[in-house]
C-alpha cells in the first residue's frame, strides 16, 4: 500500500489576454465603433422619415407591424411613435456617441452595455420584419457584451492611457471613470 499523498490544487488566476487576444478585442471594438458611426449617418433630422414613412420611422414602426414582444410593441405605439421627433434625436445622439466612445476606447464598459441595450432595442423592433436575419442582432448584442465584459478600451484605447491618472485622483468623477472603464 502506497503512502497517502496530499494533492494541492491551486486555482490558476487568468491573466490579461495575450497579444492575439488584445488585437482581437481592438478590432472588435473599432468595428463596432464604425458600425455606429456609419449608421448615425442616415437618421436624418428634423422628422427622421416620419412624413414619408421611411428611414428610422419605418424601422421603428416594424415593432408594431411585426410584433416581437407585446409590451415593447405597446410602448412603441403609445409612447415612441406619438413623440417620434424626440425619439429620433435621442437615437441619433446616442448612436453618434456610441461610435465616438467605442472608437476612442473611453469608458468602454459603460458604452459596451449601452451598445448591447441599443442592439436589443433594435432587435425588438425588426426581428420579425421581412428579410431580416435575427442572428445579426444576436451577434450585435453578443459582441457588445464581449467588449464591455473584457473592458476592451484598456488596449489601444484611452481607458488604458487614462486609468492610471484616474487611479491617482481621489475625486468622485475619477472613481466613476475607473468603474465604467
Amino acid at each position, binding site marked *: 500500500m502506497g503512502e497517502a499523498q496530499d494533492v494541492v490544487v491551486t486555482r490558476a488566476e487568468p491573466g490579461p489576454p495575450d497579444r492575439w487576444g488584445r488585437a482581437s478585442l481592438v478590432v472588435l471594438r473599432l468595428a463596432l465603433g464604425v458600425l455606429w*458611426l456609419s449608421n448615425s449617418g442616415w437618421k*436624418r433630422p428634423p422628422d427622421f422619415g416620419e412624413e414619408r414613412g421611411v428611414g428610422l420611422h419605418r424601422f421603428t414602426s416594424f415593432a408594431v407591424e411585426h410584433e416581437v414582444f407585446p409590451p415593447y410593441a405597446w410602448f412603441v405605439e403609445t409612447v415612441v411613435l406619438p413623440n417620434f421627433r424626440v425619439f429620433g434625436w435621442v437615437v441619433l*445622439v446616442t448612436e453618434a456617441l456610441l461610435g465616438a466612445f467605442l472608437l476612442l476606447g*473611453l469608458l468602454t464598459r459603460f458604452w459596451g452595455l449601452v451598445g448591447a441595450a441599443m442592439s436589443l432595442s433594435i432587435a425588438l423592433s425588426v426581428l420579425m420584419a421581412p428579410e431580416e436575419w435575427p442572428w445579426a442582432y444576436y451577434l450585435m448584442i453578443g459582441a457588445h457584451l464581449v467588449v464591455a465584459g473584457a473592458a476592451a478600451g484598456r488596449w489601444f484605447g*484611452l481607458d488604458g492611457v487614462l486609468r492610471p*491618472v484616474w487611479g491617482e485622483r481621489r475625486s468622485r468623477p475619477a472613481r466613476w471613470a475607473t468603474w465604467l472603464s
Partner: protein
Amino acid sequence: VSHDERVRVAAVVIAAAVMAMGGWGLVASRGMGITEPDGVLLGWRAFEAGLLTLNPLGAGLTLAVGALALAGAFLRRWVVVAAAAVVLLVMAAQVLVQWGGTPNALGSRGSNLSFWSGAGIGLATLATAAAWSRQPGRSVRPGARRAEGAR
C-alpha cells in the same frame, strides 16, 4: 515609456486620424461648391460603411484642426490641443443645428457628429490628463498601467 509620452502618442493618433479624414475629404470634394449642403460621402457605400460627408469647407476645416492638434501634441502645448478639441466640438454642434436643412455649411451628416465629437472629447480628455499630471507634486506611478491591466 513614460505616462506623459503615452498621453502624447494617443493625442498624436487622434490628431492624425482627423487630418487623414480632412485630407481625404479635400481630395474627394474637389470641384464641389465650397459650402454645398450635401457633402461628398467618404467610405465604402457598397459595404454599408459610409463614413463622413464633407464639402470643401468642412474638409479644409477638419484638416486644419487636425494639424493644429498634431502640432500641439508634438510640441506638448496642451492648450493648443485643448483649443483644437473645442473647435471640433463646435463643428459637432454644427451637425445638430444644420444637418437636414439648408444651409449645412460643412456638408455634414450624423456620422460627422460621431467623428468630430469623438475626436474633440478624446483630445480634451487627454489635454486635461496631461495638465493634471504636470501639476507640482502630481505623478502617475510607474507600472500603474500594468497593474491596471491585470485587474
